[in-house]
């Protein structure tokens, strides 16, 4: 695969983009990172993702793949000889897909409401967020990672959101660790891995980014 041309269209603070960076790092794939301006979208982004005009987009030998979890599955299938993300048993694979989908449905949506809403709506989002993290803690059980002994599909789907926890906590005025110490312990364990620490952004920088977005959207 030495002649592969791989480019990632991304935005540095995006947890969805971080999923792809982590997946590529786990497989040891060399790629070109291309930071995108989402306010003035460039021709390349519009050409590669005409339907949604969003990041991340993986461009592999000129062909674009969109939607972060679809990209992660694609990476797993193309670079299949190393670090498989999904288990080999179909039932276990279904469970992994279910929980990654759960992260998309719950963690992202509730998290977003924590930094965009106020008052009762924000409180409801905080509760939903914590309840969802607790369900994930239950699913993790005693395993070091959702993937078992190694990082897998659900870990890749979830752990980038850790970089947004500091922003959620500061804006929402609550402590995620106080409610879900096991999950935070899990995130810390993941961050000890070089592939994770080099793929994830600094939570303080993400917080500054979110503060900027709130000002821009006139939230406060």
């Amino acid at each position, binding site marked *: 695969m030495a002649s592969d041309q791989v480019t990632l269209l991304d935005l540095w603070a995006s947890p969805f983009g971080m999923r792809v960076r982590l997946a590529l790092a786990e497989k040891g794939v060399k790629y070109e990172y291309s930071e995108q301006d989402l306010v003035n979208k460039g021709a390349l982004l519009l050409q590669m993702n*005409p*339907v949604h005009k969003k990041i991340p987009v993986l461009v*592999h030998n000129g*062909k674009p*793949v*969109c*939607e972060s979890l*679809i*990209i992660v*599955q*694609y990476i797993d*299938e*193309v670079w299949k000889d190393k670090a498989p993300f999904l288990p080999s048993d*179909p*039932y276990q*694979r*279904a*469970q992994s*897909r*279910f929980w990654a*989908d*759960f992260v998309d449905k719950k963690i992202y949506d509730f998290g977003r409401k924590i930094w965009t809403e106020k008052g009762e709506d924000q409180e409801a989002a905080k509760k939903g967020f914590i309840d969802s993290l607790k*369900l994930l803690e239950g699913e993790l059980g005693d395993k070091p990672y959702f993937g078992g002994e190694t990082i897998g599909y659900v870990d890749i789907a979830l752990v980038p959101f850790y970089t947004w926890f500091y922003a959620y906590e500061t804006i929402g005025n609550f402590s995620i660790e106080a409610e879900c110490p096991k999950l935070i312990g899990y995130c810390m364990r993941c961050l000890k891995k070089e592939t994770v620490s080099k793929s994830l952004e600094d939570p303080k920088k993400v917080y500054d980014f979110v503060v900027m977005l709130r000002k821009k959207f006139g939230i406060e």
Partner: protein
Amino acid sequence: MAEVKLYGFWPSPYSHRIIWALKLKGVEYEYIEEDLSNKSESLLKYNPVYKKTPVLVHGDKPIAESLVILEYIEETWPENPLLPKDPYERAMARFWIQYGVDTVAALRAFYQGSGEELEKAATELLESLKILEEQGLGDKRFFGGESMNLVDISYGALGYWLAAVEEVKGVKVLEPSTLPRLHAWAKNLDELPVVKGKHSGL
């Protein structure tokens, strides 16, 4: 071969997706209708996270979320493949399946709207379906090419279900004049043996 059970809700297109997939794979299964206003112990046991249908139970192992179930069926019964083998083509199929998840919001707004909101919802649904027709379906007979695959299955609600809603609302969105290829696709889908006769009573 372990027993296969499907907990479903007959008015829901999500349940029909699973029925079509199982039929296309020739899998014997027992169908159990759920009363969603009075959920059974089994449903709550098998889908504690969402407490929704459809749920597939294979042996005694439950799988929830229709798109997750479809991928499970595809992997467990590989005969008559419903996804491309090539990773890039598979990613494209999954992309269009995912696009349908976003289309559901537009469908729901159309179903629930009235007056001005209905008009707006109809326009948005039309725009959404235009992209699907132009870039997803193109000139193919089915999303899967000559025969239906998981993408066609995931859009099943655009056939009989949308037609029923259009009749109730008195507003047509999917017509030969507005969406000729997608309209033809819906007609072809409705003629397939696995689909025909599944939606009587709507």
